[in-house]
């Protein structure tokens, strides 16, 4: 599938959220959040702690159903009532803690809960599909038959993302995929995200890391205090603008710190 079909028609979004709200008791975690994701697009969701990023992920993953608002998936209004409903729609969520079974090998982890065969597992087919998938992702893994426990952080991230693709999703939600990775491994993970975009999937990337966001995302959606606070194309926004949107103003701790450091640079 091509990411963008240039036939003169406007592309249809995979996912569109309209006025999503979610409250936990007296705490309004999300209020009137809008979000649109197109096929072949990486949308980064950024925001400070408590901005509602995690809650949004959980609404999409079906962990917490939303209170009000409309979710449209592939042009049809849907209700995400639970994790299974989310998965069946075609939304794959990769959590920050990866949720891998260390004692099982890579193939078993990829097909966990969706094994081929019931009373006689088809290991050959599962292994073949695993190898195919890693090849499509140009991902490096020492052996698909080694236990996940023996893999590096970046390789584990790769396995977790590859597992999300087993169910042939249309939208992949990545929660802080690079938070625990080193420099080289982060680059690998970012390559992987670009590979997902090339496959024509919609990607939602939750991240704290502005450098990663600016490298890999097409669009940045800023959340602040549970609501939308900006929607930028990455190509025409500066780092400072995003920070300003996250913190809610041009005068804040980050800008003051930057200004004072520049000042120091001049005096010395």
């Amino acid at each position, binding site marked *: 599938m091509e990411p963008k079909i240039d036939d003169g028609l406007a592309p249809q979004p995979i996912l569109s959220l309209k006025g999503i709200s979610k409250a936990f008791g007296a705490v309004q975690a999300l209020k009137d959040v809008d979000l649109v994701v197109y096929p072949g697009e990486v949308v980064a969701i950024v925001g400070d702690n408590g901005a509602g990023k995690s809650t949004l992920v959980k609404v999409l993953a079906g962990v917490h159903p939303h209170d009000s608002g409309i979710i449209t998936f592939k042009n049809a209004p849907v209700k995400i009532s639970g*994790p*299974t409903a989310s*998965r069946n729609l075609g939304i794959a969520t990769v*959590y920050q*803690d990866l*949720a*891998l*079974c*260390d*004692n*099982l090998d890579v193939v*078993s982890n990829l097909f*966990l*809960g*969706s*094994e081929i*065969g*019931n*009373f*006689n*597992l088809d290991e*050959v*087919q599962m*292994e*073949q599909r695993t*190898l*195919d998938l*890693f*090849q499509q992702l140009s991902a*490096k*893994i*020492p*052996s*698909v038959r080694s*236990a996940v*426990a*023996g893999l*590096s952080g970046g390789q584990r991230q790769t396995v977790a993302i590859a597992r999300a693709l087993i169910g042939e999703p249309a939208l992949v939600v990545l929660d802080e995929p690079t938070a625990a990775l080193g420099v080289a491994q982060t680059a690998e993970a970012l390559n992987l995200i670009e590979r997902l975009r090339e496959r024509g999937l919609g990607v939602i990337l939750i991240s704290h890391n502005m450098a990663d966001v600016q490298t890999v995302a097409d669009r940045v959606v800023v959340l602040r205090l549970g609501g939308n606070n900006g929607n930028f194309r990455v190509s025409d926004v500066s780092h400072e603008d995003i920070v300003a949107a996250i913190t809610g103003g041009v005068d804040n701790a980050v800008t003051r710190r930057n200004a004072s450091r520049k000042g120091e640079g001049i005096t010395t």
Partner: protein
Amino acid sequence: MNPYSDQNATGVAKESPGSVSTYVGARWRDFKAGIGTGDLGSLPVFIGLLLISVIFQILNPYFLSAENLSNLALESAASGTIAIGVVLVLLIGQIDLSVGSISGVAATIVAVGFVFHGWPLWLSVLAAVLAGAVIGFIYGLIYTRFGVPTFVITLAGLMGILGLQLWILGKNGTINIPFESWLVVFAQRAFLPEVATYLLVVLTVALFVTSKLLTARRRAAAGLPAASRAGILTRGALLLLILGVFSWHLSASRGIGLMFLVFVIFIVIVNYALKRTRWGRAVYAIGGNVEAARRAGIPVARTIISVLALGGAFAAIGGIFAMGRLASAGVSSGGLDTNLMAIAAGVIGGTSLFGGRGSAWSALLGVVVIQSIANGLTLVSLDSSIRFMITGAVLLVAVIIDSATRRSRALHGRA
């Protein structure tokens, strides 16, 4: 295009279809890697077993005689069968401390039903096994509903079920089972005829080799790395040699006891269920990371309940085996020693106390170690006080090895 050829460039170890020497070389590399990273599997048990055999054989040449080994195998079957259930429960990271009590209550149900109420023997046995399964099922319900640790649930069960056993027995201290009943014959005097033994050995090896060759061919056809023909045949020949020599040696005496054979068949079935079915994959996944299993859509509660019920059922079967062997059931059925020995067997055999690692075969390995020690010490006329101390020490060593390999895995980034 062969998907594997590119993977190979990224460092997948490929076993070249070669001679016996390359096969041996590959196993040797695995072994060295295992020592380095602390993933030894059942190697320590084999070394321990070898040590035990050598020491006791030197102390008393009767130890490895056909008669003693034949006897040892029969002795192992009862605790071993209980240990299968223990292994299953350990694999999901839980523990059942009440297997001894369950085995005792199963024995008394059979005895009271058969001797006092005149039930057919098969019905009494069925009722006892079902009772064991129901007890495990209840443990499972309590655990999945209320989240009480199985350690505590089964500790309560240990006492409660012991009470149940005494209540069923009533005023009877001990109930004797008629010597002619098939259960006692099966447990004491039924041996596989020599010809049948050899036939079984050949059949087992043939089945092993064909299934391995078929798998290898399918994998090769799919472009996946496959075990070499020479390697499979070497393993087949080795298996034939070991089983053949063992059968030949035992045939000098009474041969292989039927009860031991049934115990091994149980292991083969459970091993298949664990390694080759979706249920087995769920068991390992729950032992490895419950949360991951839950998020992957595995029916966690149902799987845990099924494992605990199976654990109860195997404990009951083991108790019935032990009863057949003694031809009696009573107050002391499934006493202290049964409980501890069965749990120790699972751990000594190499199943991790931390869940997710181990195999059904560790029930066999563990129980053989424990019974060999007991048997050997009896032969050199040391009494049970020494036996308990030594078995305790062996259990401690096994748990230390388990914990140390776990730590070593963590050190090598493999935990």
